[in-house]
């Protein structure tokens, strides 16, 4: 028994060290630049791939390995510096969401490019003798290399502390983390400080990726999976706090090791519970401070009621939508059905993100829960379509209501990250609990009943529910509730001082958004005839974000424009090229740089001017 505990302890410490190497760079970068770098996981992935190429070419000795890892760190640091100079410099004054999106786009492109350079196969480092050694603990073997990791984690931590505490550069970095304006007063050239910090953070990610190679393989998916882990660590530790990241890595590493051993499928839920509990008790993480909020989004745009021209345009569009089935072929009809579902999905996110001021990176959770809810109702309970749709909506709405109790007390990046983590956990749940969800194979055979009249009938159902639903949400936003919600976003203190219950308003918006997204997901299950874990995935959450930002967060017409344009673009891209990630990533970056207030926002500005 003692041997078992000792083994789990060592395993936990090793994964804590790995987590820390992954997360340290992210938190350092955030502390200084206030950029939440979504591409951090991609830098980590590049570290693994580059590390593979370098280490396999180096002599198979410890020195060769170490030099390979260090060279990898240097190369990734240089890449990071290039990324900062080419892209992020232009975005420091943009709303923090745009930085997330732009770096997300970089992550998309990195995945595509990595596949082109290294191929789609996973790469496993051959294990020369010095990496294969193991320690006997009872009946089990513990890799000696992991002992080295256990030492390296704290060593890197101490080295970073020394760097920040004793060098002039480190003092500047700490000053920038604590108070950015002060730094400007000191007459420091911020630009190069930021570049250097970015390079440092990227180098740490690269080092982490290379050092992880003996334990794991380099895969194309590790960019997105590792960035979620890194976010969890950084958010639990407190954004910008290095010691917080160390503490959180330790906590989560140990928790995972012991959790997996005691309750095999509990780890993800455990990690989530720890994250939620930490944020409830300490909204800025274990060692974070309130001053480390992300950069503000700037003054919100004035919202005006729809102009007659806009109403006319809406009516024409609606008429075209009604006429569509009589003109279009089956392919176009199915694209249009999906566009309608996307519209409701985007409108639901817009409600909480725009007027509600709560940006979510995990909105797919509600979409997927709605889809699974409807599919399970249809398959397991033999519920007819209307009932199954209601069940989907209720499941998503109810879970959103529960989760909302925790999440709406947070703000900004913390909120976005907690929603992201929650969605990842629901996703992992759908993968793991195969007996209910069908796991990777999904649930099949969720077809609309014959009385609905085939694809045309389903299209009209989607039109009624999705366009109708989006218009209902829009109506609520122009009603007192919507004004109160915006008031709570614009000036929370003022809102409370006129008697508004800010938390309850945000919770109501969160729940409403979850339920509406759930309805969209339920319809999607029927549109596709099946449900897969990808419905809950990060990619779908980002689809929603892109639609909302493409349309414009600050306008009420944003989700309508965004959903239609995005679905059209996306399907066209999928048809036209296999490099869709690359093209989509480039398109997002162009959007972020050229239309910071979205298409509808830009149109509105042009009309007013």
């Amino acid at each position, binding site marked *: 028994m003692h041997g078992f505990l000792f083994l789990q302890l060592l395993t936990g410490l090793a994964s804590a060290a790995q987590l820390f190497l992954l997360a340290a760079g992210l938190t350092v970068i955030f502390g200084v630049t206030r950029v939440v770098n979504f591409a951090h996981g991609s830098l980590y992935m590049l570290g693994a791939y580059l590390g593979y190429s370098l280490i396999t070419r180096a002599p198979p000795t410890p020195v060769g390995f170490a030099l390979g890892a260090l060279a990898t760190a240097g190369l990734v640091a240089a890449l990071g510096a290039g990324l900062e100079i080419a892209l992020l410099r232009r975005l420091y004054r943009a709303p923090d969401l745009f930085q997330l999106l732009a770096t997300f786009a970089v992550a998309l492109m990195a995945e595509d490019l990595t596949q082109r350079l290294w191929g789609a196969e996973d790469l496993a480092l051959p294990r020369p003798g010095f990496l294969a050694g193991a320690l006997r603990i009872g009946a089990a073997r513990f890799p000696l290399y992991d002992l080295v990791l256990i030492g390296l984690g704290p060593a890197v931590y101490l080295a970073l502390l020394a760097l920040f505490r004793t060098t002039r550069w480190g003092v500047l970095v700490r000053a920038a983390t604590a108070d950015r304006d002060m730094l400007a007063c000191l007459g420091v050239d911020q630009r190069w400080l930021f570049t250097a910090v970015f390079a440092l953070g990227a180098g740490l990610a690269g080092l982490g990726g290379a050092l992880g190679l003996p334990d794991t393989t380099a895969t194309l998916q590790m960019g997105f999976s590792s960035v979620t882990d890194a976010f969890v660590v950084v958010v639990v530790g407190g954004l910008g706090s290095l010691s917080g990241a160390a503490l959180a890595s330790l906590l989560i590493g140990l928790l995972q090791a012991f959790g997996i051993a005691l309750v095999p499928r509990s780890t993800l839920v455990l990690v989530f519970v720890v994250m939620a509990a930490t944020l409830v008790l300490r909204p800025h993480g274990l060692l974070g401070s309130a001053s480390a909020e992300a950069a503000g989004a700037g*003054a*919100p*745009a*004035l*919202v005006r*009621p729809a102009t007659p021209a806009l109403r006319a345009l809406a009516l024409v569009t609606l008429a075209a939508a009604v006429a569509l089935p009589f003109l279009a072929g089956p392919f176009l009809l199915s694209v249009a059905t999906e566009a309608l579902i996307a519209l409701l999905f985007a409108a639901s996110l817009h409600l909480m993100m725009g007027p509600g001021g709560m940006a979510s990176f995990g909105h797919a959770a509600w979409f997927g829960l709605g889809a699974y809810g409807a599919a399970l109702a249809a398959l397991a309970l033999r519920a007819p379509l209307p009932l199954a749709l209601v069940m989907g909506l209720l499941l998503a709405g109810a879970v959103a209501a529960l989760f909302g109790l925790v999440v709406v007390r947070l703000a900004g990046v913390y909120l976005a990250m907690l929603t992201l983590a929650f969605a990842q956990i629901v996703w992992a749940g759908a993968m793991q609990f195969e007996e209910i969800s069908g796991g990777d194979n999904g649930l099949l055979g969720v077809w609309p009943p014959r009385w609905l009249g085939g694809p045309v009938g389903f299209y009209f159902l989607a039109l009624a529910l999705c366009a109708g639903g989006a218009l209902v949400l829009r*109506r*609520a936003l*122009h*009603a*007192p*509730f*919507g*004004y*109160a919600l*915006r*008031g709570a*976003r*614009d*000036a929370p*203190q*003022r*809102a*409370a*001082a*006129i*008697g*508004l*219950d*800010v938390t309850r*308003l945000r919770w109501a918006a969160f729940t409403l958004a979850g339920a509406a997204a759930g309805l969209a997901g339920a319809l999607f299950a029927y549109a596709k005839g099946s449900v897969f874990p990808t419905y809950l995935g990060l990619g779908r959450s980002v689809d929603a974000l892109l639609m909302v930002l493409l349309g414009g967060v*600050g306008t009420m017409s944003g989700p309508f424009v965004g959903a239609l344009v995005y679905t059209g673009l996306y399907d066209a891209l999928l048809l036209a090229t296999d490099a869709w990630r690359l093209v989509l990533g480039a398109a997002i970056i162009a959007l972020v740089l050229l239309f910071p207030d979205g298409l509808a926002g830009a149109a509105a500005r042009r009309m007013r001017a």
Partner: protein
Amino acid sequence: MTLLAAERLSRAFGGVAALSDVSFAVAAGEVVALIGPNGAGKSTCFNLLSGQLRPSAGRIRLDGRDITGLGPAAICRRGVGRSFQITATFASMTVRENVQLALLAHHRQIWRFWRPAAAAFRAEAQALLAELGMEAEADRAAAVLAYGDLKRLELAVALAGAPRLLLMDEPTAGMAPGERGALMALIRRLAGERGLGVLFTEHDMDAVFGTADRILVLARGTLIAAGRPAEIRADAEVRRVYLGVDA
């Protein structure tokens, strides 16, 4: 008749006392000024009274009822309106909509999801704005107002809640002297007409001594004097600490 009673209020931030052992009262219809140098604890005192902060110790009573520890929304619903030192208005709305939202909140009509809010309490909002001389700005975005106008809008928003007690943190900052006098006269009139109790902070001594019935003087978190303007003017301690005159 005592409207507000603060009893031995204290508040510390991380061990540093911002306010210690402060007691005072405001009666209905009375206009009271709270003065003191920067950092004396005036805003902290306001934030305690309006529920934005919780006191470390002490009690707050409104109409004799204990409201200590209630949140800002609950305190607002009991008839306390306030303005902030750093103005806080709803930037995505027009000036009139700012007031309309406050009226909707006051009339408990927030949880309505269908009827457009644009038509709700429009006339009332317009009337309130007219009272403050802002009817011409009604359709402008609150985000583009000049500082003095923002202060006035905050007052209109606070008055929309029909408060019995009004807390104003530096209500005339950024205003020209003429505007300042008009605003203080308006506040005096409201206090007289509606029996509104007013507590305000202000750096302009003409406004303070010309408007207030009573003055409270705060220095380093403690109340060093309280009394009628003439008494305060004559108080040696106040002259030394605050008015900058060696007694």
